[in-house]
């Protein structure tokens, strides 16, 4: 979280596009919440102004000028991976730059490109 904000030139975690929270208390470990780069992203499907463009290789890119801050995308994301910029009133979504993975000391985070195979139709 700190790495993500730092990549944007700030200390703290306000601008972080990745979240980490305990799994119901420290004794149970942690859960990482981050965009997994869906092939067919639900957030883009529900955007009324086409501000979220599908990104080549998965995930989305935000066209800020088009965004009206309706939060539809936030509600549509099953993972809860769309964070909110309160001052701009717009979403903050991971762009898969890999900075967080670079600063993860225990290799929990990793950025990799994967090829998704089309599922074969059963006949």
């Amino acid at each position: 979280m700190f790495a993500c904000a730092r990549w944007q030139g700030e200390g703290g975690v306000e601008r972080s596009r990745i979240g980490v929270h305990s799994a119901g208390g420290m004794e149970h470990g942690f859960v990482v919440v981050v965009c997994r780069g869906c092939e067919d992203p639900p957030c883009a499907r529900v955007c009324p102004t086409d501000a979220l463009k599908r990104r080549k290789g998965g995930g989305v890119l935000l066209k800020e000028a088009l965004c009206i801050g309706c939060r539809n995308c936030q509600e549509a994301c099953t993972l809860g991976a769309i964070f909110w910029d309160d001052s701009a009133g717009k979403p903050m979504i991971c762009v898969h730059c890999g900075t967080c993975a670079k600063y993860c000391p225990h290799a929990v985070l990793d950025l990799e490109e994967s090829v998704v195979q089309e599922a074969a139709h059963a006949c």
Partner: protein
Amino acid sequence: MPAEPLSHVLYIDLTNRTHHVRERSDVFAPGLGGAHAATRLLEEECPAGADPLGPENPAVFAVGPLTCLFPLASKTVAMFKSPLTGDLGESHAGGRSAVAIRHAGYGAIVIRGASDLPLYVVIDGSHVHFRDASAIWGMTRGSTSAKIIRGRESGSGLRTIMRIGRAGERLVRYASVTTETYRHFGRMGLGAVLGSKKLKAIHISGRSSVPVTDRKQYQAIYDEIHTAAVESELMKKYHDLGTAVNVGHLLEMGGLPAKNLRESRYDGAETLSGENLAENYLGRRLACGHCPVACIHLAALRQPYEDEPYFYKTSMISYDYELIYALGTMLGISDAQGYLRLTEAVEDCGLDAMSAGVVLAWATEALERGLISTAETLDVKLAWGDWATYIQAIRLIVEQSNEFYRTLALGAHAAAERYGGAEFALAFNRVEMPGYHTGAGAYANYVTGARHSHLDSAGYSLDQKADPARTPEKLAAELLKEEQWRQVLSSLVVCFFARGIYKPDVVMRALAVAGVSLTESDLTRLGRETLAAKHRFKQREGFAWDAGALPKRIFETPALGHPISEEELRRTVAEFARLATEAQTAG
């Protein structure tokens, strides 16, 4: 939204249930926070001669200019008047406490007054709420109350839950405050201070950002520190076996206090070693907020339910060197599971593990020597190694069921005053000793350190670097210099484990990114001033530079193979007092 400047202080009044924020750049100037600012806030908030358990005693929490900006700047400094010593109370904790306070927009939080009903306080950025804690007051397990608060409150960004247990509610003078289940403001009785205020917990969250002056420079210095933290040898011992690695080191050297320091080597200690615990019990490792090291080691302990076959519970229990010493070797325990279960009992009620272990060690020897009998202990037959009996005794101390246990709840020194056995009551200025029996350096440190903690001036480390040319006078000068420098670290606030990384040059460059320009001599001066301010507070509250009566036991048991010279120790303390007084006068 950019964070409010560090100099914004949140004042919370529990008596009237009000709060306000004040700009205190006078207290935070010039760019230090933490211990530097907290000492000043304590000085102005706490009237001379205040009752440590009265509403006039404040609890101050402070973070520093590097918090949220750099790795390992992860600690919060708490200051209060200690109900254990009657003078300066200072305790540091990590978890997420520091990042949560800074994200909420504050450099410090001052808690004043006392509530008539149990409360917990919720701080979410600029909002403060007072919640009824009657239903969670008196719970046997502290972690249950934290779970309930976590479920009831939401918090944006990172949050911390600091809470007391039954020991704090019952005003045991060495009750701790637990944060994030496994970290503690352990020492000197902050738990009792919050208990006296009927303050069960503080829930803090926020998500403001912290601006930097030069983005490129920030990234460069960040990388330098981060690389040192994750790749260099400096932090290796903390992330591999954790502090428990010290068990083996001290055992080998002959500096591990065992059975109330009758021994400094101990056969049973190997089962409590970092190696054995890691191999057989280590179940998870955790880190404080914004720390890449993950020194927090949790043991997974599977325990069967009594009378019920095939029913088990698995507890995650944090272990560290100081706990292994106090609740393990000091009590002659050589059974890892027994040690872990005793630790769990101490965690459940929110006691300082170190004080609790040393108090029980005194009581075991006092019973053995006939200073007390089972009439006092309520038939609890305290005996070395018998962890199940120690668990019973812990609960009786918390409940203070009779005069004997009420006295034990005041600490080892008070117990020896009442029942005798001062020669083996291992407390210095009423603070039960840390786990290093290494020589005159360690004990001079316990006597003179502002917190009476081995981390104040690292005397134990000097003892291990044998130097025939080190006279008591030279030793005193080295201790004072180290303690003065550590004031800078605890004002930034960085974890002392990172002291090998945060050297003056790194500190200056990191501060420059945070917008503060200080030279090395500025830092040295600020360290000296901070320590002098602490000494002023201690003396105002009755502390005297006098080694006084020292427990004879420390001179009887060899330290690193040799007896400690009482004369050398007293000379060191006298010289420290002279130098510290001089430093105070110099301003």
